[in-house]
């Protein structure tokens, strides 16, 4: 059996690991934002709510603004923190090019 390369110190795996942690970071940030606004502003009685663009403030921040903030954050993170790496092995690459020239 081939030696398993899944835990070799391939530099691409370092990139992958870092990006996985960034993903976890994003989700934690997303959750805290969502939770803090929803239950921070939404726990008072509905008669005391303030409204933004027609929506109760808790909903506006936790659901609508969070979608916008997360989208922008994801774009920034992907553009500036994520690295492009090749997914192929050197040998496979040749194979794939062959395939392309046939197809």
């Amino acid at each position, binding site marked *: *059996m081939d030696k*398993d*390369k*899944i*835990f070799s110190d*391939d530099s*691409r*795996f370092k*990139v*992958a*690991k870092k*990006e*996985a942690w*960034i*993903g*976890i970071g*994003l*989700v934690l940030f*997303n*959750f805290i934002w*969502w*939770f803090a606004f*929803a*239950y921070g502003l*939404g*726990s008072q*009685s*509905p*008669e005391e*709510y303030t*409204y933004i*663009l*027609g*929506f*109760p403030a*808790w*909903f506006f921040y*936790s*659901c*609508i603004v*969070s*979608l916008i903030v*997360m*989208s922008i954050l*994801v*774009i920034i993170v*992907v553009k500036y923190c*994520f*690295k*492009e*790496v*090749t*997914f*192929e*092995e050197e040998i*496979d690459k040749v194979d794939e090019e062959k*395939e392309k020239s*046939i*197809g």
Partner: protein
Amino acid sequence: MMNWGIVLPLIIFLFIIFIVGFWTNKHVRNSDSFLQEYFLGSRSMGGFILAMTMMATYGSASSFIGGPGIAYSTGLGWVLLAMAQLPTGYFVLTVLGKKFAIVSRQYRAITLIDFLKNRYHSEWIGILAAISIIIFLFSSIAAQWVGGARLLESLFPISYPIALTIFAFSVMIYVIIGGFRAVALTDTILGTIMFFGTLILLVAVINAGGGINNIMENLMAIDPGLVTPFGADGSLSASYVSSYWILVGIGVVGLPQIAVRAMSYKNSRSMHQAIIITTVFVGIIMLGMHLVGVFARAVHPNIAVADSVMPTITMEVLPPFFAGIVLAAPMAAIMSTVNALLIMVSSAVVKDIYLSYVNPQAQDQKVRSISYLVTAILGVIVYLMALSPPDFLIWLNLFSFGGLEAAFIWPVVLGLYWKKGNKYGAISSMIVGVTSYILFHQFYPNALGMHTVIFPILLSFLAFVAVSVITQKKELVHSI
């Protein structure tokens, strides 16, 4: 009376789907590696297609019919809960991310099960995984088909068996002939329909309700609970709603039909694009459709059946042709979920059972005909079961989402990143995950006020780590 204004867009849309199916069959016939093409689209998915197929596979009947129906009776609290789905796009693709793509190429893995078998060097994992995929996904396909047929039946003057036949066979034909590529490409069309359908309906409902201010005032008048995060009857506690972040947010990493998509992208650029597009699209669709459900309450306060909220409000606020386009959205959502599940189950049967245990030496031509045949037979069995769904199937479907998550999340994620994870850990994690999910569901549902899935996922994590660590010495001795 059949309303042709509504029917016409649906027919046009079915027609386009068929063309795509036949067109992709060319790829299948001309491919050098049939299995790679049929079950993984030759790993050639670009960013947009990948994003759309992720979103469309994930967005199912519940996002368009069930979810808005509950939002109608619970209010903004259910929209808050639905927004726990926002991470699906970026979380799955960053966590499985590049490592899964690289490793599955190294292993030449075509299915999630290939990956697990190679990672843990264990046939037992393959068998366990194949069984859980076949059982759980089979029952969810049937449930989705029942949903699709019920929707058709409610829109047109046709009986349930006819509705089911139309629905089931239109999905089956293009999946059988086109394989994964047909699924991904039709998902792109279906996803686009879901997206624009959501936007059109949202705008129309806000209009019909006389603007958002007016809608909120009406909701306050009906029941102030509707505008709080706690639901109309105050039953949505913060811990219950938050627990959905595990079920429908990060746990989705463990769903095989989603994870397999993280094997199919062409290169890192398409993965990067997909992260962005999926996040934005999933967010807009989930927010939009569930808001439609809440707003519908102000527009039309007396809809009795939750599942008919979406179709009823659509036909009320939109002219027929547009209503047809919008009603194509839930059809699209159901079709795009079902097609992915069908090809997934088919791959488990062909690749992980037939080619692994029955006939490993099968020639390419033989593999082709077996793949078409298995996909067709599976489709027909589901169709027959969905005609009058047995209780057992409905019972199983209750577990399919959480059950698959509890079974696969740790063997996949820790398998990728934790060196010490071994086959003993993975096997116990899968068994503990599934059985504890069924036990909790039966005897202690929503334990401690959280969704049932929480403890099984926790327990399967503990099982994975504990058993891996304990058996580590044994592994070392063996390898020497």
